[in-house]
C-alpha cells in the first residue's frame, strides 16, 4: 500500500490554497468526531465542581464516580447482563450464521437450497413491523426473558450473505480433495472452511457483538423487570431521561455528584466498543467491501 502514497507522475501537485483548505476541513471533522468522546471521558474523571462548571477541559482528577458505580449497584449488574447477552448471543449467532451460509454454498447441487437462499434474501427487502414481532415474541413466552434479546435477531441475512460469499471464494479443489479422502461435510466445514475464513468470521463476530452490546429497543419492549436490564437501558433511564436510579449504589454509600456519575456510566458502556475497535479495524473494511460489492 505504500506505493499508493506517492503522487502519480501525471497528477499535478495541488495549489497551496487547496491544500490549506483541505487540512482545515479535515481538522474540523476530526475534532468534531473525537472531542465529544474526549470531553465525556475527561469529565468522568473530574471533581464534582469542575464537572458542573461547564468547562471544555477538566481541572482536577478523581475516580470517585467509578468507585461508586462499580461498587455493586445497578450499573455493575447491567454491565454483567450486557456482557452475558453479548457473549452468548454472538456465539449462537456465529454458529447459526456460518452453518446456514455453508449449507447454501452449493445451490446447484442441493435441491431446494436456491429456494431457501431466495427466501432469505427477500427478508432484506421488508420487515413485518414492530407489532407483529412483539406479538410473536410474546406468544413464544419470551417476555421478561433475556432470550428475547438474542433469538429474534439470531441470524442477520446480510451477515449470512457476506459469509456465504466468502465461503464460495474458497478454493473448491481443497474441499473436493478432502471429500475424496473421505471427509464428511461436517469435517470439511470444521477443519477446512472455518479455518480458512478467519478474517471474515472476525468481522461478522464483531458486527454481532456490537449489535448485542448496543441492543436497546428490544430490551425496552421485552424486559419489564428493571432488574434484568442491560446497560443501554440503564443509560437511557439515568442519563438520557435523567431519572434517578434508586439502587444506583449500595446502601450506606453517600450519593456521588450526578454529573460525573452520568459521564462515567457513558464511558463504561462505550468502553467495550472502544477496546474492540482497533483490533477489528484492520479486518472490517475489507470484509464489508467484499460483501457490499458482491451482495
Amino acid at each position, binding site marked *: 500500500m505504500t506505493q499508493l502514497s506517492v503522487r502519480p507522475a501525471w497528477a499535478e501537485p495541488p495549489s497551496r490554497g487547496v491544500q490549506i483548505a483541505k487540512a482545515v476541513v479535515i481538522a474540523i471533522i476530526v475534532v468534531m*468526531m473525537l472531542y465529544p468522546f474526549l470531553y465525556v471521558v475527561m469529565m468522568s474523571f473530574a471533581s464534582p465542581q469542575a464537572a458542573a462548571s461547564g468547562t471544555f477541559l477538566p481541572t482536577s482528577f478523581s475516580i470517585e464516580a467509578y468507585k461508586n458505580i462499580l461498587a455493586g449497584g445497578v450499573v455493575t449488574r447491567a454491565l454483567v447482563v450486557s456482557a452475558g447477552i453479548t457473549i452468548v448471543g454472538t456465539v449462537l449467532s456465529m454458529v447459526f450464521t456460518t452453518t446456514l451460509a455453508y449449507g447454501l454454498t452449493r445451490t446447484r447441487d442441493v435441491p431446494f437450497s436456491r429456494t431457501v437462499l431466495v427466501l432469505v434474501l427477500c427478508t432484506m427487502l421488508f420487515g413485518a413491523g414492530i407489532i*407483529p414481532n412483539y406479538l410473536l415474541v410474546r406468544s413464544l413466552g419470551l417476555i421478561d426473558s433475556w432470550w428475547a434479546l438474542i433469538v429474534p435477531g439470531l*441470524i442477520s441475512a446480510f451477515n449470512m450473505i457476506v459469509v456465504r460469499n466468502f465461503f464460495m471464494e474458497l478454493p473448491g479443489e481443497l474441499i473436493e480433495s478432502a471429500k475424496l479422502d473421505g471427509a464428511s461435510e461436517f469435517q470439511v466445514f470444521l477443519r477446512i472452511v472455518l479455518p480458512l475464513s478467519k478474517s471474515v468470521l472476525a468481522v461478522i463476530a464483531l458486527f454481532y457483538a456490537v449489535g448485542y452490546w448496543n441492543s436497546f429497543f428490544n430490551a425496552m419492549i421485552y424486559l419489564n423487570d428493571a432488574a434484568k436490564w442491560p446497560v443501554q437501558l440503564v443509560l437511557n433511564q439515568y442519563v438520557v431521561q435523567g431519572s434517578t436510579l434508586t439502587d444506583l449504589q449500595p446502601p450506606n454509600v453517600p450519593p456521588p455528584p450526578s454529573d460525573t456519575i452520568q459521564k462515567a456510566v457513558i464511558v463504561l458502556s462505550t468502553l467495550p466498543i472502544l477496546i474492540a475497535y482497533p483490533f477489528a479495524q484492520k479486518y472490517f*473494511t475489507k470484509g464489508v467491501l467484499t460483501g457490499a460489492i458482491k451482495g
Partner: protein
Amino acid sequence: MSAPVHDAVSSPRARERVADSLAGAARPRRTLWERIKREKAMYVFIVPGFVFFLVFAYVPLLGNVVAFQDFSPYLGIFGSSWVGFQNFVDIFQDPEVLTAVRNTLVISLLQIVFSFPAPILLALLLNSLVSERLKRFVQSVVYLPHFISWVIVISIWQQVLGGAGPVAALLDKIGIHHVNIMTNPDTFAALVTSQVIWKDVGWGTIIFFAAILAIPQELYESAATDGAGSWRRMWHVTMPGLIPIIALLLILTIGNVLTVGFEQILLQQPAIGTERGEVIDTFVYFRGIAGGDWGLAAAASLFKGVIGTLLVVGANKLAKRIGTGGIF
C-alpha cells in the same frame, strides 16, 4: 427438479460414473429424491437457519392481520373480532397521524438533502489525499461513531450540547443565555439530521470508496494527459464512476422516506414533545405496544410498509427510464 430420467445404464455404480463424466457438460442425471439423499448432510446445515427465517421473518408477516382486527392480546388473533378496513379509516381521521406523517417527511427531506450527499463529499475529499497514513487515520476516526449505540450517542450529545454542557456555557459567556439545543422542538429536525451525519457519514463512505477503487487508473491518466485538472478529473472521471451506486442508494433512500431513525427519535421524544418529535414509527410504538391500540397501530405500520414498497418500485422504474439502472 423434473420427472425422473430413465437411464440406460443399470448398475448404480456405473451410472454414477457416467453421470460424473457428464458433469462437466450436463447436470448429473439423478432423480430429485436421489439428489436429496446424496446431499442429506447439507440439510443439517440448512434446516436450522431456514426454520429461524420462517419463524422470525415470515410468520410475523402474517401477524399483520391484526391491522384488520379490533385486536386484544388476551383474545389473541383467533379470538379478536374482525373490523375490515375500519382501522385504516381511523388512522386518516387521527390528527396525531397527520402530525407524525408531517414530521417524518420533514426529517426525511432534510436527510435526503444533507445526510445523503455528506458521505459522497467526504469520500471525494479523502480520496484526494495523497498521504495514505493520513487517510487511514481520518477513516478510523470517522468510522468510530457508527459502532456506538444511539443511547450512547444521544447521551454524549446531551453532555456536550445540553443545557449543562460546555457549548451552552460558552454561549452564555458571549451573551446568548439558556440555549439547549437538545430540547428545542423548533430545531429538532435539524438536530436529528446532524446526529445522523455525525454517526454515519464515515461509515457511508465505504461503499463509495469501493466504487472509486473500481475506476481504472488509466482513465485518470489519460484525462490528465488531455489537460484535465484535478477538479475536472473528479467531475468527469470519478463522478461518472459513482453514479450507479448513488442511483442505487437513492432508490433505497426514497423507499425508506417514511422511516426515520426510530431509536434515535424515540429516545429524544420525551424531551421534545409529540408536536415535533412524533414520527410514524414512534406513533406505532406509543399507540400500539405502549398504548394498547394494537389494530390501529398495526394498520399505520402496514400502510407505511405498502407505501414504502410502492415508492421503491416507482423509484426503480424511474431510475431505469433515466438510464442509470435499477436494483431489480
